[in-house]
């Protein structure tokens, strides 16, 4: 847990291996910087002392056992936690250097810049077209949105499958298509970041593969942070991986998530520094 004691968070040292030269910028810009972030639900400390930097135009994965706070931390990156009564964030969450919890920051505006895709596909019970046009319409765009809808659906690799049935209800699609529709819907808002909270956990392996391919494409345009239960998925798609675990306090019965190790994905999965990380990624759950 060297990160938690570092006064100013830096990206983990980058060992540029041959297969990563193309995708890892040696001096990447940081989209997010977290400094000593604590997330509370009422009196309960859900995530403790997280400090990390999340680089621009890369895929960063949060992995770890259930209850380790990875989803909670993800939701603090676009202020979705504001919707839960009693939730609060301490420490600094900086987005391109701006304090995301500053007094002038509007959570509604934040979410137009930092979009989110959820665990279970949650299209609106409207047509495919109206789902994608929902965000642009919220932003006050009127009239013909055909171009916007087509572009977003192409961006989510869904256009060819649905171009002839844009007026059909989104609930007639398969689960994998619904999830890509949710990605298209997020893209249509033209965000800078897309947060993904276990986006493939409700999908079959073929649909999962398609979404993973799509993510590799999306990171050219967007910064992606993904929470996943699936370690192989993190290994396949992520540039960097953060491993979290749960600390149980036997006296109070509370369970708090902590960041154990954060590094290049190849390092996390081949020679992690922390024994707990090694036990987890090798399947010996710790």
């Amino acid at each position: 847990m060297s990160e938690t004691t570092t006064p100013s968070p830096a990206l983990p040292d980058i060992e540029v291996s041959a297969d990563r030269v193309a995708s890892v910028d040696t001096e990447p810009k940081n989209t997010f910087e977290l400094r000593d972030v604590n997330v509370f639900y009422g009196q309960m400390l859900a995530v403790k002392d997280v400090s990390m930097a999340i680089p621009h135009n890369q895929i960063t994965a949060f992995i770890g056992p259930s209850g380790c706070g990875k989803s909670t931390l993800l939701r603090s990156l676009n202020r979705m936690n504001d919707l839960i009564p009693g939730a609060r964030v301490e420490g600094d969450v900086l987005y391109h250097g701006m304090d995301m919890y500053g007094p002038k920051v509007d959570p509604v505006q934040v979410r137009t810049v930092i979009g989110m895709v959820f665990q279970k596909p949650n299209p609106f019970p409207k047509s495919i077209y109206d789902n994608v046009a929902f965000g642009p319409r919220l932003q006050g765009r009127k009239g013909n949105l055909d171009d916007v809808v087509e572009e977003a659906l192409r961006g989510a690799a869904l256009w060819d499958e649905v171009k002839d049935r844009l007026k059909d209800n989104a609930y007639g699609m398969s689960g994998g298509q619904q999830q890509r529709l949710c990605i298209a819907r997020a893209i249509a808002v033209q965000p800078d970041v897309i947060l993904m909270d276990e986006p493939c956990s409700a999908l079959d392996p073929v649909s999962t593969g398609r979404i993973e391919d799509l993510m590799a494409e999306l990171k050219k345009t967007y910064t992606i942070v993904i929470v996943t239960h699936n370690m192989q998925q993190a290994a396949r798609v992520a540039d960097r991986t953060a491993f979290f675990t749960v600390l149980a306090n036997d006296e109070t019965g509370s369970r708090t998530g902590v960041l154990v190790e954060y590094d290049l994905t190849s390092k996390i999965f081949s020679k992690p520094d922390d024994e707990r990380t090694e036990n987890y990624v090798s399947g010996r759950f710790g």
Partner: protein
Amino acid sequence: MSTQVVSPGASSSGAPIRNLEAPGPRIGEKIIKAVLWATATLSILVTTGIVISLLVPSIGFFQTVSIWEFLTGTIWAPAFANPSYGVLPIVVGTLTVVVFAIIIAVPVGLSSAIYLSEYAPTRVRKTIKPILEVLEGLPTVAIGLFAFYVLTPLIRDLTPFLPWTGPFSIGVAGITVGLLIVPLVASVSDDAMRSVPRSLREGAYAMGATKFEVAVKVVVPAAISGIIAAFVLGISRAIGETMVVLLVAGAGNPVLSFDPTKGTQTMTAYIGSTATGDISQGTITYDSIFAVGALLFLMTLAMNVLAMRLVKKYREVYD
């Protein structure tokens, strides 16, 4: 040729082979099924009985008065020496009540439901919701008295520019009925909106929707079938409401008028004020009550059918 069944792992370990047949006839199940069927059928039988009991005297009525005269006549005076059976005045009375009730109950009921479901903190909701449910059950005669002695003078004082005459007003009756059904509309709509999955709201919030946009563009459309059901329940009550209308709009002679400041009768008020002990069976007046009742039944039925069509057309299925 016999098929080779491959068992995984170890062979049979000598465990006893267990019986797969039912231990005996399950009579209890059959009895319960019959009782449930009977209760479900009861309501259908009762409805059929009501329709028949309305139709039989109505047929007698329409042997004297033509359906055309009944539906298009503009004077309703069945008890007069020179009787007239044009039902329009009391139909207009009922429609006036319904229109005023909708004007009050739909916006107020829907806004209350949006507040309760989307904005109210849990504690507030848990306080208000039972109060609404109690209000739904208030005796309408008490509400009628309140409306006659408190609401009517208040509305008159607030609108001195209107041509008020006499103590009764069909418009005030409609407003009262509207207030009466607000708790019902609010409570049923709230239930419908609360059952919209949280994930849909989160999806909209994550795209930068405000609380109001989430409520109006996601939750209300997704709950629309339940909300329309709430409106239909409310309007049905407005059509059927008798006591408030008798007290507030009076039971005087119905005159075909669209003036809400005047007192008049509605269809239910006519039935309620005429079906007293001193009406003799077999008279045309007696039969007229049932003809009005049958028309009332048809109007409610038509509205329910219309509502079902609306629900089918605008329904957003989220599962």
